[in-house]
């Protein structure tokens, strides 16, 4: 079944404080997320901007901040929402959870809310040009994807 969420996790050989700083501080967000800097007001409702040298910027809104445990925000994952506030109709929710494992950290990220994203007429028109060939190929692709996200 197609899930409308992406779940990923990684094991990091570094203490939780260090990983927390990396995912929440502007100087770091501007490196691993964007590549041309970032701004963040780290509190629920705080504004966030992430910049890319080639793709412009994306605006976000901080949702939850629980130091060393949980950090979440909403953002538009594919298009600049163009001055609009990130809300449930134009953005997805990204949730990081951190768990200490000895001196190391397990970092998990879940991005969800794709089902409620609105799309353009043009995109819908393109989707309607589809045909019924290649079903097996598509389901294989889906299965491969589902297995990948089930990690």
């Amino acid at each position, binding site marked *: 079944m197609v899930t409308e969420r992406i779940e990923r996790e990684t094991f990091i050989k570094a203490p939780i404080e260090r990983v927390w700083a990396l995912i929440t501080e502007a100087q770091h967000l501007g490196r691993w997320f964007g590549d041309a800097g970032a701004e963040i007001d780290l509190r629920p409702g705080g504004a966030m901007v992430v910049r890319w040298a080639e793709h412009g910027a994306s605006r976000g809104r901080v949702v939850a901040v629980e130091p060393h445990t949980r950090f979440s925000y909403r953002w538009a994952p594919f298009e600049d929402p163009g001055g609009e506030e990130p809300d449930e109709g134009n953005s997805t929710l990204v949730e990081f959870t951190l768990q200490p494992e000895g001196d190391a950290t397990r970092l998990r990220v879940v*991005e969800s809310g794709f089902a409620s994203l609105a799309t353009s007429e043009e995109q819908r028109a393109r989707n309607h040009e589809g045909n019924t060939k290649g079903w097996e190929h598509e389901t294989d692709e*889906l299965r491969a994807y589902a297995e990948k996200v089930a990690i």
Partner: protein
Amino acid sequence: MRAPAEGVFAALADPTRWRVLNLLAERGEGTATSLAGELPVSRVAVVKHLAVLDRAGLVEGRREGREVRYTVRTEPLGETARWMARLAAQWDARLAAIKRLAEEDPNTQEIPR
């Protein structure tokens, strides 16, 4: 990157609709009556599921007499799967970058230990 067709995720989130879609794919085509015969739900329920799938662009209906004959459209589904796979790959890259930054020698970095 653009979002996939509106309603595709919602359409596929229901297990019965997923079954309807797979039956149509296996049989090549089907009507609400023929599908209801193979599923533990009423014809009326199948009609509703087909309407949701139709709105999401996942099936296409052709009226034949009193019945509508449905076939699967694979393109929106494939496009959605590819789109999600691309986003998932982006997260893999981002987590790898966080891991790399976190595991760098702290003495040469300004990241707090």
